[in-house]
Every structure is written in structure tokens, then in C-alpha cells.
């Protein structure tokens, strides 16, 4: 919050200097790799690398291309999963409560529900809609699964994720009107939607009431309902939060479920329950003193709150920098906010501002000039690990339909550092033992899958083993082997290595050792690819 307040007060003089100073020394390929992973979830291609090597100024055009790529939408969905925390395997309504579904449909059921609000954000990003649509839009996103189980119909195409509308007459308020959000964040009779109201504040205003210290007044008899109500309304320690939290909570009674495990009750919005606050908290809907209206009004209040845009900037900055904003970032947050506002509140304008700022640039050598707050290196998320492996090798690790790196009950999402909001509230930002083990097994499977696939293909059709005959020992064509290793480094690690460099030498030695053990050239190449996919620089970028 302090950071937010300081946004308006701090100037950006330092940044001009930063721009000039750092631009001259940044490795354009490392910067491009970072942007590609952040904006598309994949490594840059050889052609893209060549473009920035030839002209570092091509970075700007490539960033634009990345944000026009179909994968930008899915990457936004992936990045903001940590904010919304809606992807889950723990929704209260069991899949089998829907007659149309079977137990085997669980993966798609869970994935679809959890992604609903995130898909709205993804569509906003991909189509340059204003970010305010996230809370004011009169549409949602649905796929075949959601159209089967909920009162929602597509307004565009007939298959896959499409812009849609609910048909149960619920007020229009973007993500605030989605079942996906409120199935994830439920409430109880005693809680009176306060937990949900806090999620509204946390997600859209970057203010989490629960991080405030709570000082229980020991003079208040917590067993006396009237005394508690009185304290909530009059005790300064209670009022500080409840005066703003409770009115927001009262907007959400249309999502009050009598039986939150019943598809019949929880699939639809309940306008007849909107006044439920009258018999619970007794606090009328309102937004920081501005009372009245329904969920649509709440969305418009949020969109008009200056903190909404500032929070959008903070979320984007935190996701792309993979660190929290600090007081020292106040000046750049101001710059990004101005770019966001000036760009029509599109995520593209905001992301562009961040990825062009010197503070975003990786540091590749000790001789480079650095700027305060610059993140010299950061680590991929579990989902980025998954998407870059899939792009490179074609291998997606699923089990019984569950994406192993995006699920936790049977998957390895938590072990790979993925926040789920239950066991972990933030993504891991540094390597740990289980993440390294996940990387290892993923690398083994993916390399073997790529080897199996490309072994059957002509060299010209391959994506990775483009330089060699997979059946030929290195000695048969040493130059091709060297070129192959160079190509793998460029494609997998975004490093251009010299033919006589230590990387090539080490990988040739590895190939020879593997070949000596198995006497199979193709498997030795699979081993080399495995090693590159397990490299520290495959995680750190």
C-alpha cells in the first residue's frame, strides 16, 4: 500500500539514465530469451535470435510479435494463476453430481472451472480490451465443459474457449460474475462472504485484509453475538477492516449456496438471495462509503478506483520480475502505470513497458553495467518449465489427463514450486531439491520422446536433431556432430556456443561416454539432449 501511495509522488529522472546506461551492455539474446519465456512460455527460435544478433533494436519488434502470438494469451493465464489461485483440484461440487459427466472427466472438469476467470483475463490481453473489462465485462469465457454443466452459452464459436454469456440473469461484472471464482473461494454462515470480499480486495486492489495485524480486544465478549456485532461496528480495531470489507461482502449474496456440494444449487446465480445480507450481517452493499447497487456496481466501483490500475501494474511487475515490488521500485511503477493508462489500459501496453525497462534486463557478465533493482537472473515457473519443454520436444507430461506440472494431488506441481493457494501461496523463486528432480524426470521423458519421434523423421522435418544422422557415431561426421551440439545449445538454452568452445567439448565427451555404455548413437544423442534440458540455465534465465 505504501508503494501505491508513493507512486504519484516519485519522479522518473533516474530511469532515463538507466535506459541509456544499460541498453548498451545488455546481451540481446539473453534479453530476448527472457521476453520470449515471459510472453510466450517458450524459447526464442533460431531465426528470432539471429534477428536480434544482427540488430539489437529488433527486440522491440519481436516483443510486439510475441504479444501477438496465440501463446501470449495462454501465458497470461499461466502467469496470473498465482494471483487468482483458482486452478484447483478441490472444488466442492463433485464431478459425478452432473449426470452428463463421469469420474474420468475430472481433469477437464477441474481445469475448466479453475481457468474460467483467468480465461477472461487472457482474452482481454489477447484482444487488447481494457483491463477494466475484468470487472465490468458483460461476458465470460466458456469451453465445451462449462457449456455442458453451467447456464452459459457461447457468443462466438461453438468449440473450445469462447466469449460467452451466462443465461441465468446474473449481473454483469466480468470475473466477479464467474462461478469459477466463487467456487474456489467459498464462504460460511459465520463468515458472511467476508473471505470472498477479501479476495476481491486482494486480487483487484492488491490489498489483503488478512495481512493486517489483528488485535482482539479482550474486553469484547466474543461469545456474545450482540457484543461482537457492536464491536465490528464500533470498536476501532474491528471497524478499521470491517467498515470497508463487510459492504463489499454484501454484494456477493447471489453466489450464496444453500448446498455448495450440489450442482443443482451451485451452478446458477441466485438473484433471490441477493438481499441475504439483511439477515446475516445487516450491512448493505457498498464500496468505501458509496452504497447501493448490485454486483455490476461493484465492478464499476473497482474499475474506477485508482488502486485498481495500480494493482494491475503491481501484479504485472511482480509476475514478470519474479520478485515483489519494493519502495525502490516506486519510480518505475509510476512509469509503467503511465504507460498502462496511456495505452488504453491494455495488458499489452503494460507488459511492453515492463519488458523494455532496464530493470527487466538480465545480466550476463560481470562487466555489464547494472541498475538498482535489476534482476540479474530469475527462475522459470513450473508451468514455464512445462511449456518450454513441450515446445522444444513435443512432450507434455500428463497422467490420466492431469497435467503433472499443474496439479498437486497426484501431480508434481507443488514439488516443482507451483503455488496452489492451499499448500503454497506463492510460486517458488529458487531451485530446490524436488524441483531439480522434477526437471530431471521431465527432461528424461521429453528427450526420449523427441528422440523416438525424430528418429522416424527425415532430417529436414526435425526440430532438434537437424544436423546429424541419428544412427551414425560422432566419428563418422565430426563436423555434423559439432554443428548439432551448437544447434541444441541455441535452441534449448538460447546460447550460441563456439565450435571449439568448452560447451561443445563437454557435450562431445558426454556423447562418447553414453555411446560407450550403450553402443547406440541415437540414445547417446537423447542423453545429450537430456543433459541440456537438465542444465541450470534451462531453469535460470
Amino acid at each position, binding site marked *: 500500500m505504501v508503494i501505491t501511495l508513493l507512486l504519484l509522488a516519485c519522479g522518473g529522472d533516474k530511469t532515463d539514465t538507466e535506459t541509456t546506461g544499460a541498453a548498451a551492455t545488455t546481451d540481446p539474446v539473453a534479453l530476448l530469451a527472457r521476453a520470449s519465456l515471459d510472453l510466450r512460455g517458450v524459447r526464442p527460435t533460431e531465426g528470432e535470435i539471429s534477428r536480434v544478433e544482427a540488430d539489437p533494436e529488433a527486440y522491440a519488434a519481436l516483443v510486439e510479435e510475441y504479444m501477438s502470438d496465440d501463446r501470449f494469451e495462454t501465458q497470461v493465464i499461466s502467469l496470473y494463476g498465482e494471483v487468482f489461485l483458482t486452478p484447483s483440484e478441490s472444488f466442492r461440487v463433485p464431478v459425478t453430481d452432473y449426470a452428463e459427466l463421469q469420474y474420468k472427466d475430472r481433469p477437464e472438469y477441474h481445469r475448466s472451472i479453475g481457468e474460467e476467470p483467468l480465461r477472461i483475463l487472457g482474452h482481454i490481453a489477447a484482444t487488447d480490451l481494457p483491463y477494466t473489462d475484468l470487472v465490468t465485462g458483460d461476458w465470460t469465457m466458456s469451453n465445451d465443459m462449462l457449456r455442458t454443466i453451467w447456464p452459459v452459452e457461447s457468443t462466438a464459436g461453438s468449440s473450445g474457449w469462447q466469449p460467452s454469456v451466462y443465461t441465468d440473469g446474473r449481473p454483469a461484472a466480468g470475473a466477479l460474475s464467474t462461478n469459477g471464482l466463487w467456487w474456489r473461494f467459498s464462504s*460460511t454462515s*459465520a463468515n458472511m462472504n467476508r473471505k470472498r470480499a*477479501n479476495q476481491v480486495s486482494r486480487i483487484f486492489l492488491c490489498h489483503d485484509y*488478512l*495481512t493486517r*495485524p*489483528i488485535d*482482539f480486544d*479482550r474486553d469484547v465478549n*466474543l*461469545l456474545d453475538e450482540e457484543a461482537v456485532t457492536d464491536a465490528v461496528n464500533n470498536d476501532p480495531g474491528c471497524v478499521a477492516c470491517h467498515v470497508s470489507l463487510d459492504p463489499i461482502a454484501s454484494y456477493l449474496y447471489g453466489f450464496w449456496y444453500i448446498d455448495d456440494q450440489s450442482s443443482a444449487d451451485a451452478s446458477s446465480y441466485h438473484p433471490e438471495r441477493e438481499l441475504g445480507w439483511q439477515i446475516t450481517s445487516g450491512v448493505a452493499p457498498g464500496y468505501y462509503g458509496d452504497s447501493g447497487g448490485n454486483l455490476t456496481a461493484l465492478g464499476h466501483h473497482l474499475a474506477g478506483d485508482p488502486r485498481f490500475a495500480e494493482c494491475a501494474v503491481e501484479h504485472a511487475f511482480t509476475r514478470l520480475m519474479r520478485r*515483489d515490488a519494493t519502495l525502490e521500485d516506486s519510480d518505475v511503477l509510476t512509469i509503467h502505470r503511465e504507460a498502462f493508462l496511456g495505452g488504453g489500459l491494455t495488458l499489452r501496453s503494460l507488459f511492453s513497458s515492463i519488458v523494455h525497462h532496464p530493470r527487466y534486463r538480465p*545480466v550476463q557478465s*560481470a562487466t555489464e553495467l547494472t541498475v538498482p533493482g535489476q*534482476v*540479474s*537472473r530469475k527462475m522459470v515457473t513450473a508451468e514455464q518449465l512445462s511449456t518450454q519443454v513441450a515446445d522444444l520436444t513435443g*512432450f507434455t507430461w*500428463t497422467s*490420466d489427463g492431469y497435467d*503433472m506440472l499443474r496439479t498437486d494431488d*497426484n501431480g*508434481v506441481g507443488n*514439488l516443482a*514450486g507451483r503455488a496452489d*493457494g492451499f*499448500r503454497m*501461496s*506463492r510460486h517458488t523463486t*529458487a*531451485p*530446490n*531439491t*524436488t*524441483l*531439480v*528432480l522434477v526437471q*530431471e*524426470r521431465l527432461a*528424461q*521423458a521429453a528427450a*526420449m*520422446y523427441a528422440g*523416438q519421434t525424430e528418429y522416424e523423421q527425415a532430417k529436414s522435418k526435425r526440430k532438434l536433431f537437424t544436423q546429424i544422422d541419428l544412427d551414425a557415431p560422432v566419428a563418422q561426421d565430426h563436423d555434423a556432430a559439432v554443428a548439432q551440439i551448437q544447434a541444441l545449445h541455441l535452441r534449448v538454452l538460447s546460447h550460441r556456443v563456439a565450435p571449439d568452445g568448452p560447451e561443445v567439448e*563437454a557435450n562431445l565427451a*558426454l556423447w562418447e*561416454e*553414453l555411446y560407450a*555404455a*550403450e553402443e547406440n548413437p541415437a540414445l547417446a544423442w*537423447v*542423453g545429450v539432449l*537430456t*543433459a541440456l534440458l*537438465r*542444465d*541450470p*540455465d534451462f*531453469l*535460470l534465465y
Partner: protein
Amino acid sequence: MNRRRFIATTAAGLGVLGLPGGRVLGATAKPSDRKLITVFAQGGWDPTRVFATVFEHSDVDMEPDAALSTAGNIPFVDHPDRPSVGSFFHANHGRMLVANGVMVRSIAHEICTMIAMTGDTSGLLPDWPAIIAAGSSEELTLPHLVVGGPSFAGDLGASVARAGQAGQLEGLLSGEILQTSDLSVYPQSRAAQGIIDRYISRRASARAAAALTGADATLADAFSESTQRSLGLKDYRYIMDFTSSPDLRAQAEVAVDALQTGLSRCVTVGHFGNWDTHANNDDDQAPLWEDLFQGLGTLMALLDETPGAQKPTLADETVVLVLSEMGRTPQLNGTLGKDHWPFTSMMLLGPGITPDRVIGGFDAGYMGKTIQHSDGELSPKGQILSAEAIGATVLQLMGVDPTPHVSGATAIEGILL
């Protein structure tokens, strides 16, 4: 004979079984040699079912048929449907301490969990086990193993690993986790895996050595350290089984193995059940408590029968912290449930604490009573018994200075031996 039984060589602690007055500790270990098992009942338990003997408070809904009972100096709530509770108290009061009226400052699961485990609400700081594990004087392969329950690694991630509730860690170590992949792939040979492991180990070390300063160095070091630990873990797979389940007894076996083999100094396990009883509190909490104490009984028996590294049994070297993130309201709601409450109970067992004792308490309003830290006794002018103070006490108990890790609270010196 499973792998756990194979490595648990003798029942060295059996000599104390059946002693009247409950088991007592043998010679206690030095704080820095102590190990920690944290048992976390996630969802918010109702202390009036076991720890909070507040029968005299008319505003508190106690359970029908519950009765006050005592084991040594420790009063507890006994109930005919929960025989394991009484058995546990009678068997272990000589080495346990109950803290009642512990304040967790919030009534939100996530925040209470962070406070109970870290003393902070950011989720960014490491929890007590991670701090203790990272401060180990020994070079351990996996200082903190999380078999179940919450974990906050903070910046100590390289020292912490989760096992996963469905045997994920075991599957990762063996490679068998890939057998369930929907896309079928041939496994790499053991020989090839070994060669690549050695290559990666060298590469990780070289990368760390060549790292720049700042984040690059931090991350490269963490990668290198994690790589070495992951390779070490593969060796451990042949002497212990990381496969667990939501069952506390199964988790207890993994926990004891991890401590006995020297793999870890700290292990966190979880009791999984629907403790969040906003409806049907009496019916739903009862079997959970019975199951929890059955599991705790198994855990203590395993510690008793397992030789310690320096003391006769692992029980002589191991502190067990049993907690839940919050308590539950004293009165039943309209659906016979109980909602969230910011005061709860916790339990400590093992070396270094004054045993056979209850500290703190609940007042007539079912809020925590204040205590003096100097002796742990109730005092109207004392401090509220906070989760942070319990955390600071556990850190000190394990030989870690709590000062840099806990703000606003100090250890309860009066309960430490």
C-alpha cells in the same frame, strides 16, 4: 519385512514400555542435536474435545458424554468414543506439555497457518522446521522433509523437500513416476542416467562457481546444492521408503526413518481430515481426534523403539510439536458446527521441556489467559500465550537463537529445562 523395519534394527526403547505414570525420557540430547517432528492437523481443531477442559464455563458447548480426566498433572477431556486419547495421555504425560489458549491472531486458515508455522503473515519467511533444519550443524542430505502438512521454505528452499501425498517423491527418485505418463516413453537405462547425473553434478558446480553476484549467484548456488541433495536422496531410496499416504501412521514411519537414517533433522507430517467443521462439529471432530491420537501413538512408539544417534532411543532426541492452525468457536452454530476461533491449543513432547504440565488456559470468554514467560505460570500481568512465543520456544529448544527469526515474542523460558 519392509524397508523401514529392515533399518529399524532393535527396539532399544522397549525397556520403558508399560512403566507406571507414563513413559519418561532418558538422558536428553543437547539442543543442537535434537530433531523435530511437526504434526499439523489442518483445518482447525476443536480444543474442547481434548485439551480445553472448560467444563465450568457455561458459555462453552462441551460434548455430551465427555468427562474430565487426568493423566499425571495433565487434565484432559475424555470420551468413550475416543479411547486412544486417554491411552496416549496416560502413556505419555511424563514427557509432554500442553499449551492452552494459544493466540493465532486471525481466523483465516491461510493466515493462521502462516502465523502458527512462521509467526508472520507474508508467507515469504521460512517456517520453524526450515529454520531449524537449515541451521543444522551436520551436513544433511535433506534437512527438512515435508511428508504432509504445510511448509513455508522462504529463502531456505534448497534445504526443504516435499514428499507428496501420493508417493510423488518416491516416484521421482525411482523414475517410476514416468510410467504413468499418458505419452508412453522408453525409460533411460540406469547406466545412462548415472552418466548424466555425474555430468549435471559437475555442470551445476561449475555454473555456481562462475556465477555473477546477486540473484545469479543465489540461484546458481541453490541449483548446485539442490542437485547434490537430489543425487544423495537417490541413495537414500535404497534404505528408506518415501512412499506415504494421508494416513498419519504411514507418515510417521517415513518421518522416523528420515530421522534415524540421518537424512533429515526436521520432518513435518499432516493429519488429513475435515477438521474444518462448520457443520456437525461433534460428529465429525470425534473420529478425527481418535485417528489423530492413534497416529500419535504410533509415532511415539516408533520413536521409542528406534535407536537414537547418540541417545538410547530416537524419542530421547526428538521433539514433537502437535498443532492446528486455529481453534473453533466455543458454541455450536445453527448447523451444529463450530466456526473459526483465534485461540487454540498446542502440544509439545520430547526432550528439553518441563514435562507433565499444562501452561496457559482459556478464560470464561474462551480467550487465552496470560502467562509469565519466566516460569510459564498464569499471571494477570503476564503476556498472551502466542503462536509466535511457541515458535520462539521451539527454536530455542532446538538450539537456534529465535531473536532474528521471531519478532514481537520471546521464548517461554519457564518451560525449558
